[in-house]
């Protein structure tokens, strides 16, 4: 079953300026693990943002779970992000003043889940990523790996169909990276479709089912991954 259908996607910044995406077309099947490889500026993060509904294409069509993201209004895009996608960022993007469990519960705040249920659900998610005892710790009291695990717990809190990872191990040492990738592959195994941006070909080969190499806003090469 096709989860994502993108046709001739363009993303241009200002008129006549550089095109971050220049006519990308791709399909992603439900349950697939796709890696986007490329140098910085190749357009892979832009593509990820379009898939996540954080940004809109200037041209082209992008259908995710039967929704045409290019035509959705701001409010509908918000609802799409809330219900369908989960983000994992290179820099974790946790709210520094909130304890771990409240960071994990953030999507549930906007979904209107009452506080008691939010806390229960958040602690459950933290338990799954091995941080069950650290719910009340603030991000500043945690290591980079632990912070990324909190971020993963947050991304999974809404049980998204599409998990989008932007260099999830970019700020971590290799041992910690392995733990994080293990959690991400776990999520993939339990049913989420996955798109991961990385510039590490080795990482892509090891975990992804399909690898798309990008350059100058286009997909220039498609190959099978090892997974």
């Amino acid at each position: 079953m096709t989860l994502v259908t993108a046709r001739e996607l363009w993303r241009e910044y200002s008129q006549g300026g550089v095109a971050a995406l220049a006519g990308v077309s791709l399909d992603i099947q439900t349950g697939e693990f796709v890696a986007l490889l490329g140098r910085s500026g190749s357009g892979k993060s832009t593509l990820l943002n379009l898939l996540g509904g954080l940004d809109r294409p200037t041209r082209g069509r992008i259908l995710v779970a039967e929704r045409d993201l290019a035509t959705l209004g701001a409010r509908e895009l918000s609802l799409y992000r809330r219900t369908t996608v989960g983000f994992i960022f290179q820099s974790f993007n946790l709210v520094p003043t909130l304890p771990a469990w409240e960071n994990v519960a953030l999507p549930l705040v906007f979904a209107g889940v009452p506080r008691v249920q939010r806390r229960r659900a958040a602690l459950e998610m933290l338990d799954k990523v091995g941080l069950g005892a650290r719910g009340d710790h603030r991000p500043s009291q945690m290591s980079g790996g632990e912070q990324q695990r909190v971020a993963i717990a947050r991304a999974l809190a809404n049980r998204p169909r599409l998990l989008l990872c932007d260099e999830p191990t970019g700020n971590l040492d290799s041992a910690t990276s392995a733990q994080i990738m293990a959690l991400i592959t776990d999520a993939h195994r339990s049913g989420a479709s996955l798109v991961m941006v990385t510039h590490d070909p080795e990482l892509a080969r090891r975990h992804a089912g399909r690898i798309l190499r990008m350059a100058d806003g286009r997909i220039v090469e498609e190959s099978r991954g090892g997974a």
Partner: protein
Amino acid sequence: MNLRGMIWLALEGLLRKKGRNFLTTSGVFIGVFALTLIVSLGQGLSRAVTSTVSGTDNLRQVGLTGGFGIELSNDPSEIEIAGEMDDARRERLRRAAVNRRQIRQVAGRRANAIDDRTITELSKLPHVESIAPVIVERYEMKLNGHESPATLSYGVDVGRRRYADRVIAGSYFSGPAAPEAIVHEYLLYRWGMLTDGDYAAVIGRKVKLKTIQTELTPEQQAPPMLQDFMRDLTDEERKAMNTLLPKLLKQLGQTTQRRAAEREFTVVGVLREQMPGDPFNVIEDGNAVQADLFLPQETARELFLASAVNIELGYPRALVTVTDAEFAPEVEQALRDKGYTAFSVASALKQIESVLLMITVSISFLTGIALIVSTLGIVNTMITSVIERTREIGIFKAVGATNGQVMTVFLCESALIGLVGGLLGLALAALAMIPGDLLAVRLINEKAAIPFDQPVFVLPLWLMVAGPALGTGTAILAAILPARRAARIDPVRALRHD
């Protein structure tokens, strides 16, 4: 939308910068504090004034005095100054004519006298319940060997118990036409009588009252037709008429109507002075404050009308009682329209209250400046907060916050600033009212003639709600633009923000 979750986020955001947000709050706090205090003061003063006079029948009474003959048709535009002259002089003369034209009084006689005929007539005005003449008159008085050349007497409406309650020796009147008198304790004091024995010696004695002789002018003695005729004469003609009149009247066989009355009454009691706390009628009892001798209303009236001069001039004043306090100003105006002078506590009260309201509103406006300044502080704080939390806003959006929800978080934050400031302002204002009341009551008592022990600050429930609500409302208004700015932040850029 789960508002409680947004409020949690807002609260968390506020607590992050306690110092800065406390300072911002203090702006609202000072504004609401001052505003609450001012409005409470206005409320308190207005209530104090009302409760001071709203007892007894004060608000239902209208004081009526004979008009001073002001003509109703004194439209200045009707006056024409003839002859050739420059505009300035014409204006001066026109002014002079207007001034002279307004007051037209026949010597010694009010143009609008109050007599039994006019009382019957005025009683037919709508909403008038009754009109009673006020009998205040000076008499030569003899009592127990003491004499007084001009004692002021007052006719008491015997039905009113206010006077009965002030009798400190002897008894009250037995009826409205009884040949009885009550003397004031001050009169007895002036005669050196202070003990119970002194009082007992007076009670039961006869008091003799005699009309003070007043000459009538020849014109006043003339028949009404002749008086009307003389009204339009020139000064010279009138002077000649006054010389001729006595002879003319003699010729016509009309004797001089100089009838002096003399009566004897039995003293039945002694009345004490009116004190604060006694029921007091501003209009009715105001006539009696200087009286030394009190007579039943009918008795006083009979004596009063025994004098030809009094018949001629009419009663000095009358007391109009209206069916309901709300009609007092209307009746007052109707009497004025008929050329009388009228005064009612109800309309005076209305004026005082509108002045108080005006003062309260204008000071409130000034105080409102404090709130406006605090609004600017809030705008500043919120803009700073939005900029500082750009990345956080990006995170909110990435996890599915709508623009409305982002806006709500910031509006809640500001509303909390306003609410806390407003509640603090209200609380401190309520506290400040305690010493404020003590101080104000002391100051008023130093200056005022009557003891005053009412609260000067009154904090009604509506104000308790309105103060904090105003603080919260202003804060929310102040946050609208910053919150909109937060809502419009582009999440992609925000997430890359440092």
